[in-house]
C-alpha cells in the first residue's frame, strides 16, 4: 500500500492529489524562504486565517448570483481578496499606529477568523440541508478533489514558482540588507509587497489541500529546516523547495494509503520530521554537531591545562584531564609523566611563555588578539618572528655552560 502510494499506483485521484501537493510544497518552500529570511514568518499565519471571510463572502455572492457557490476558483479569488485586505490592515496598523507587527498580526488573524466563522454559521443556516462543505477549508480535504481543482492547484503552484525564480535577486537583496537595497535603487516596499503577494498565492492555492490552519507550516518549516544545512541563500532556497516538495509528496502519498490519515496534518508532520532530524543532525548548526564541537573544545582545554601542570610539576587531581593524558600515553598510571609527556609539557609551557611576550608587545597586537589559550603560536606567527621572541625569552640563566 505504502509503496504503491509512493509510486503513484493508487489510482487517478490519489495520483492527482499527490502531484498537486508536491507542486504546492515546492512553491511554498521556495516562497517561505524569503519570508523567513525577512524575519516575518508569522505574517503568513495572519494571511492564511484572513482567507476565511473571503471564502464565505464569495460563496454567498455566488449563491446570490444564482450560481452553485462551490466553484473552487471563485472561492479562491474571494479568499485572496480578503487575505489581501488583512495584509493591508497589518501594514496600516504597524505603520500608522503604535502597535508592533506581532500584535497587528494577532489582531488581524483572530478578528478575520472570527468573522469568517460567523459567516460560516450564517451559510450553514442559509442553505440548510445543502452541505456547502466550506469547513473543509479549515483543515483541507483531498477526498473529493476534482480534475479541475487539481489543475488549478498545479497551475497556481507552477506560476508562483516561476514568479519566485524571476524575482529571486531583488528579494534576496531586500531580505538581507533593506537599506543597501534601497540605496541600490530597489523599491523595498514593492519587493516586500511582492513577497507577501506570493505568500498569499501559495496560501490560497493550498487552502484546498492542507487547509488554512496548517498551510503556514508549509511556508515556515521547510525554510527553517533548510537553513540548518547551508549559509548560502541560493542553496537554502533550492533545498527548502526540495524539502517542501518531498514532505508534501510523501505526506500526500501516505495519507492516500489508508483512511483516517488527513492529508494536511500528515504533510506537516513529515515536514516536522525533516526539521527534527536537521535540528539534531545537521553538520555545523545541528545539536549533535554543537555537542561534538563542545566536547572537542573541552578536550583541548583539559589537555592544555594538564600539560602545563605537568611542566610545572603540579599534581593533577582532575579525573578527566588524567584520563586524557593517560590515553594519549603522556603520563603513566601513577600520574608521573612519560618522556613524551615531559617533552609535550615543556613545549606547552614554552608556548605559553612565548604567548605571554606576544601579548605584552604592543607591536603584535593583531596576533595577541587571537590568543584563546589553545591556539598554536605557529599558526599565527612566522618562524622568524618566533625566533625573535625566543631571543627575548632567552635560555636558562645562572647555570655554568
Amino acid at each position, binding site marked *: 500500500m505504502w509503496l504503491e502510494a509512493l509510486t503513484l499506483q493508487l489510482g487517478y485521484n490519489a495520483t492527482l492529489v499527490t502531484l498537486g501537493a508536491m507542486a504546492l510544497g515546492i512553491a511554498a518552500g521556495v516562497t517561505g524562504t524569503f519570508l*523567513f529570511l525577512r*524575519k*516575518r*514568518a*508569522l505574517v*503568513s*499565519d495572519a494571511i492564511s486565517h484572513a482567507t476565511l471571510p473571503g471564502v464565505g463572502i464569495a460563496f454567498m455572492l455566488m449563491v446570490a448570483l444564482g450560481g452553485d457557490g462551490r466553484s473552487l476558483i471563485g472561492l479562491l479569488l474571494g479568499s485572496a481578496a480578503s487575505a489581501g485586505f488583512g495584509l493591508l490592515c497589518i501594514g*496600516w*496598523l504597524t505603520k*500608522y*499606529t*503604535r*502597535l*508592533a507587527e*506581532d*500584535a*497587528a*498580526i*494577532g*489582531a488581524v*488573524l*483572530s*478578528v*478575520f*477568523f*472570527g*468573522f469568517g*466563522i*460567523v459567516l*460560516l*454559521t*450564517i451559510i450553514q*443556516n442559509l442553505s440548510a440541508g445543502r452541505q456547502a462543505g466550506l*469547513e473543509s477549508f*479549515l*483543515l483541507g480535504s483531498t477526498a473529493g478533489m476534482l480534475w479541475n481543482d487539481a489543475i488549478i492547484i498545479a497551475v497556481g503552484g507552477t506560476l508562483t514558482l516561476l514568479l519566485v525564480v524571476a524575482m529571486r535577486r531583488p528579494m534576496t537583496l531586500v531580505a538581507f540588507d533593506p537599506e543597501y537595497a534601497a540605496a541600490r535603487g530597489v523599491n523595498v516596499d514593492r519587493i516586500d509587497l511582492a513577497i507577501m503577494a506570493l505568500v498569499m498565492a501559495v496560501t490560497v492555492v493550498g487552502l484546498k489541500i492542507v487547509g488554512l*490552519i*496548517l498551510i*503556514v*507550516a508549509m511556508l*515556515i*518549516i521547510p*525554510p*527553517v529546516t533548510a*537553513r*540548518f544545512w547551508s549559509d548560502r541563500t541560493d542553496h537554502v532556497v533550492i533545498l527548502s523547495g526540495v524539502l517542501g516538495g518531498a514532505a508534501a509528496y510523501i505526506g500526500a502519498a501516505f495519507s492516500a494509503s489508508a483512511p*483516517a*490519515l*488527513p492529508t*494536511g*496534518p*500528515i504533510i*506537516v*508532520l513529515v*515536514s*516536522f520530521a525533516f*526539521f527534527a532530524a536537521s*535540528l539534531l543532525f545537521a553538520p555545523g*548548526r545541528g*545539536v549533535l554537531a554543537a555537542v561534538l564541537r563542545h566536547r572537542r573544545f573541552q578536550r583541548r582545554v583539559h589537555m592544555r591545562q594538564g600539560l602545563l601542570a605537568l611542566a610545572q610539576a603540579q599534581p593533577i587531581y582532575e579525573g578527566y584531564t588524567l584520563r586524557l593524558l593517560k590515553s594519549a600515553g603522556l603520563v603513566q598510571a601513577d600520574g608521573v609523566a612519560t618522556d613524551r609527556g615531559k617533552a609535550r609539557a615543556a613545549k606547552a609551557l614554552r608556548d605559553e611563555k612565548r604567548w605571554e611576550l606576544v601579548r605584552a608587545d604592543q607591536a603584535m597586537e593583531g596576533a595577541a588578539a587571537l590568543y584563546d589559550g589553545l591556539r598554536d603560536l605557529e599558526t599565527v606567527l612566522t618562524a622568524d618572528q618566533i625566533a625573535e621572541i625566543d631571543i627575548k625569552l632567552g635560555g636558562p640563566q645562572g647555570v655554568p655552560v
Partner: protein
Amino acid sequence: MSGAEFVPLSLTPLLIGVFSAIACALPGNFLVLRRQALIGDAISHVVLPGIVVAFLVTGVVSAWPMMIGAALASLVAVGLIEAIRRLGKIEPGAAMGVTFTAMFAGGVLLLEQTDTSSVHLDVEHALYGNLESLIWLDAIGWESLLDASALAGLPDELLRIFMTLIGVCLFIGLFWRPLKVSTFDPGFAEALGMRTGLIGLSLVVVAAVAAVAAFDAVGSIIVIAMFICPPAAARMMTNQLGKQIGWSVVFAMLSAILGYVLAGYGPLWLGANHAVSAAGMIATISGLLLALAAIAGPCRHRSGAPAH
C-alpha cells in the same frame, strides 16, 4: 426580555464570555507590550493535542484532565519554542510557527485516528467552542440567584473561569511592580535584582492557564482575539499601564456582551431565524473596537512619530 427567559438561557453564557474575555485580556496587556502577543496564538493551537491526549489517556471527556492536558501541552510548546530558538538560533516567530503547527497537526491526526464518534470532541468545537450551550437549566428567573439548589446546577465552566479570573487578578496584583518594571525596562529590572526570566515565564504560564480555562468554555478564537485586541485597543487610549489595563477590561467586557447579544439576537432582528457563532461574533466586535481605537484613539501614534 423577562428574567424567566434571560436568566436560564443567556445569563451564564454571557457571564462566562465576559469572564473569559477579561481573564485573557489582563495578561494580554503585558504580552502585547513585551511583543509576545503571538504566544497566545501558539498556546491556543497547542491546546488541541493536549485535550486529545488527555482524552486518550483517561477515556472520558471531562474538564479537569483535559485542562491539565492542555496546560501541559502549552508548557511543552513553550519549552519546545525556547529549545528550537536557542539550539537552532532561529528567530522566535519562525520557532513558534514550527512548533504550534506541528503540534496542532499531531492533535488533528490523533483525533482522526481516535474513535470519538460517541463523544463530543472535534476540531470545530476546539476552534469556536460552544458558548451558547452553557445554559443554566435549573434557573427559573432572577430569584434563582438566591436559590441554593438552583445555584448548584450552574455550569461548571462558570465556576472554573471565575476562579481563573481571580487567580489572574491576584497574579497581576501581587506581582504588579516586577511585571511592570521588567516589561518596560528589563535591564533596569535585572539591575534591581529581579529574576526577569522567571517573571517572563510565569507570565506565559498564567496566560496559558487563562487560555486553557477560557478555551474550555469558548474555544480558541476568542482566546487569541481577547489576548490581543482589547489590550491593543487600550494601548491606543492611554500612555499609562494602569489605565491601559482598565481600558482593556472595558473593551473585553464590551466585546463579550455586544458580541453575544448580536450573535444571539442580531439575526432575529434582521429577520433570519438562526443565531450565528457567538465566539466568532465576540472576536469580530473586539476587532471593530480595535479599529475604532486605531482610527480615533488619543494615543494611537508612536510617541515621537510625526502625526499623520
